[in-house]
C-alpha cells in the first residue's frame, strides 16, 4: 500500500509553493535593489521615481576604492586617452584620483579579525567541549549555563569595562585586541554547540581506540574529530559570520588601524551626502562572502541553527 494520508496533495503543494516563492521574491527585492544601485551613476541612484531600467556603470566601485579630489585647471586640460579607464571615468566628473581609499584596508581588517578569531574560538572551543563532554568536570552544568549567560549582556554594557581594560593594556584599536575580544565572545557559543555535537558521538569508539593502545589525545584527534567535523564546520561558520558582521564593539573600540568594514561603510561620503552607489558597492562586496558561504554550506548552517532547538 503506497498511499500516504500524511503526504500533502498536489494542490496544497502548489499553493504552498506559490506563497513561499512570493515571500522569497519580496524578501529578495531590497537586496537586488542594493546590488543594482552599486552599478548606477550618482544621479541615477537618487532619481525620482526610482529607476528600474538604467545604464550600468562601475562609477560606484571606482569611488569606493579610490580617494579623490577636485582637479585643478591644469589637469582638466590634460589629454585623457593615455590614462587608465578608471582615471578617465573620474576625470569626467571633475575629479582626480589621489590614492586608494580606506575601504580595502577595512575589508582586509574584517578578513584578518574574522578568520583569526574564528580559528582561535574553534580550536580552543573544540578542546574545551571535548573535555566537558568526556571528563567529569566539577560544576559542569553550572559552568555551561554560565558560559551561555554571558551572551545575555548587551554589547554596549560589556564594552564599557573592555574599553577601560584595553586602554590600560594598550590594546585599543589593535588587531590583537579585537581578535581576542571576538574569540572570547565566540568561545561561549562554540563550546556550547560543539559540546552538543560531541555528546552525540558514542563513547564506544574512543574506548575501543584506547584499549587498542591509542593515547587519549590520539583518540581525540583520530576518532572524535573526524566524526564531529560537520558540527565543528557549522559552528565555525556561525563564529565567522558573527565576527564579520559585528558593529558595536568595532565602532567603540577601533578608530583607524583595526577598524573593520561595518563601522566604515556608513561613513562613505560623496560630494552631497552619502555616495549611494559607492555605499551600495561596498555593501555588495561585503555581503558577497557571506552569501557565498550561505549558499554553499546551507545544509551545515541549517543543522547548526536547529541544533540548539533539537537537543535537550
Amino acid at each position: 500500500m503506497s498511499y500516504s494520508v500524511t503526504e500533502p496533495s498536489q494542490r496544497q503543494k502548489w499553493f504552498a509553493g506559490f506563497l513561499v516563492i512570493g515571500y522569497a521574491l519580496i524578501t529578495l527585492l531590497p537586496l537586488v535593489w542594493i546590488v543594482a544601485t552599486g552599478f548606477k551613476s550618482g544621479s541615477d541612484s537618487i532619481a525620482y521615481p526610482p529607476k528600474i531600467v538604467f545604464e550600468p556603470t562601475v562609477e560606484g566601485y571606482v569611488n569606493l576604492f579610490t580617494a579623490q579630489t577636485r582637479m585643478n585647471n591644469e589637469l582638466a586640460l590634460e589629454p585623457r586617452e593615455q590614462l587608465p579607464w578608471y582615471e578617465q571615468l573620474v576625470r569626467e566628473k571633475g575629479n582626480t584620483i589621489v590614492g586608494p581609499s580606506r575601504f580595502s584596508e577595512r575589508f582586509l581588517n574584517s578578513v584578518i579579525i574574522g578568520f583569526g578569531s574564528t580559528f582561535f574560538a574553534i580550536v580552543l572551543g573544540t578542546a574545551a567541549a571535548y573535555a566537558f563532554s568526556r571528563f567529569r568536570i566539577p560544576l559542569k552544568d553550572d559552568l555551561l549555563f554560565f558560559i551561555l549567560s554571558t551572551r545575555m549582556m548587551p554589547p554596549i554594557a560589556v564594552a564599557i569595562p573592555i574599553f577601560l581594560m584595553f586602554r590600560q593594556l594598550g590594546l585599543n584599536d589593535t588587531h590583537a585586541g579585537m581578535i581576542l575580544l571576538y574569540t572570547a565572545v565566540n568561545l561561549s557559543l562554540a563550546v556550547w554547540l560543539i559540546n552538543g555535537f560531541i555528546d552525540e558521538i558514542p563513547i564506544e569508539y574512543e574506548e575501543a581506540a584506547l584499549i587498542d593502545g591509542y593515547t587519549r589525545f590520539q583518540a581525540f584527534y583520530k576518532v572524535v574529530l573526524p566524526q564531529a567535523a560537520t558540527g565543528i564546520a557549522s559552528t565555525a561558520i556561525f563564529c565567522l559570520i558573527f565576527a564579520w558582521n559585528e558593529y558595536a564593539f568595532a565602532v567603540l573600540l577601533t578608530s583607524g588601524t583595526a577598524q573593520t568594514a561595518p563601522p566604515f561603510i556608513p561613513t562613505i561620503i560623496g560630494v552631497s551626502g552619502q555616495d549611494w552607489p559607492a555605499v551600495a558597492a561596498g555593501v555588495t562586496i561585503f555581503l558577497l562572502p557571506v552569501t557565498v558561504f550561505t549558499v554553499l554550506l546551507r545544509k551545515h548552517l541549517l543543522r547548526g541553527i536547529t541544533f540548539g532547538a533539537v537537543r535537550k
Partner: protein
Amino acid sequence: MSGKQAVQTIQTKPVTALNSAKGLSDRMIAWIFIAPTIIILLAINIFPLIWTIYLSFTNYRVNRPNKDVEFVGLRNYERILSDTDIWISMQATAHFLIWTIVLQVLIGFFLAYLINKKFKGNDLWTTIIVLPMMLSPAVVGNFWTFLYQPQIGLFNYVVGFVSGADPSSFSMIGDVALAPWAIVIVDTWMWTPFVMLICLAGLRSIPDSIYEAAECDRASKWRQFWTITVPMVLPFLMLAVLFRGIENFKMFDLVVQLTGGGPGSITEVTSINLKREAFEKWRTGYASAYAVILFVTIFGIASIYVKALNKVKER
C-alpha cells in the same frame, strides 16, 4: 599461565588501558584542553562583569580619570529607576520587542508550515529566504535608510504603487508615528527566517505515525493541527522566541544605523540610551549601574522563561 591468572589479567587490563601510561594522562589532557578557554572567558567575560558591578557603585567618569572616585552606594541605581528618559527608552524597547516577536512568530511559523508541504524546489527558495539573516545588522540598517527615503526610496515607491498613496507624503524614518514601525519591519525582514528554521525543525520532528493514527481515528485536519501540530511545535517556537527576545532586548546595530534613536528619541532603545550615557556623556559609574540593571532584567526574565519552557517540553 594458569586459567585463574589469565582471567585476572583480562579483568584488570581494560582499566589500565583507559588510564593509559602512554602519552599524557586524562587529567592533564582535561586541564590543557579547558584552561585556555577558562582563562579567556574569565578575562574577557567575567572580570569585566565584576568590574562593571564595582563601577556601578561609584561616580567614576572615564573622561576625568584623575578626579577622586567616590563610592556612592546605591545612588546610581536610585537615579536610574526614577529617570524618565530611561523609562521612555524601555517603552521603545518594549514596543520593538513585542511587535517583532509577534510578527516573526506568525510569519515564521506560517512559512515553516508551507515549506513543510515539500513542494518542488523548496530548498532553493528556503535558502533565498534565509539570506537576510546572514547580513550585518549595521550595514542592513544603513542601506535601509536608502530604501526608506521619501522621494527616491524603493519602499515608499512600492507602497505608493500598491496603495495609491503619494510616495513622498510619508517618511518611515522621519515621522514620529512611523519610525518605530520602520525598525520593526527591517528586523522582521532579517529575522523571520530564523524563527522559520526552528519551526521547520520542530515540524519535521513530528513523526508521521501520529498523524496516521489520528486519521485512523477520523480526526479532522483542523483538529489534527490544534491537537498535534501546535503542541509539538510549541517548545521550538518558545525557544525561538527566547533567542529573538534576548537578541532584540540587546539590539543596537540595526536601530542606531536606521534611525539613530530618532526622530527625537522615539526609537531610542535601551542599548542606544546606554551608549549615550557611557560613551557620550561619559557617566561611567551611572552607565555601569544601568548595565547591571539591564543584565539582571534579561537574566531574570530568561531564567523564568526557561523554567516555563522546560515544563512545556516535559508535557
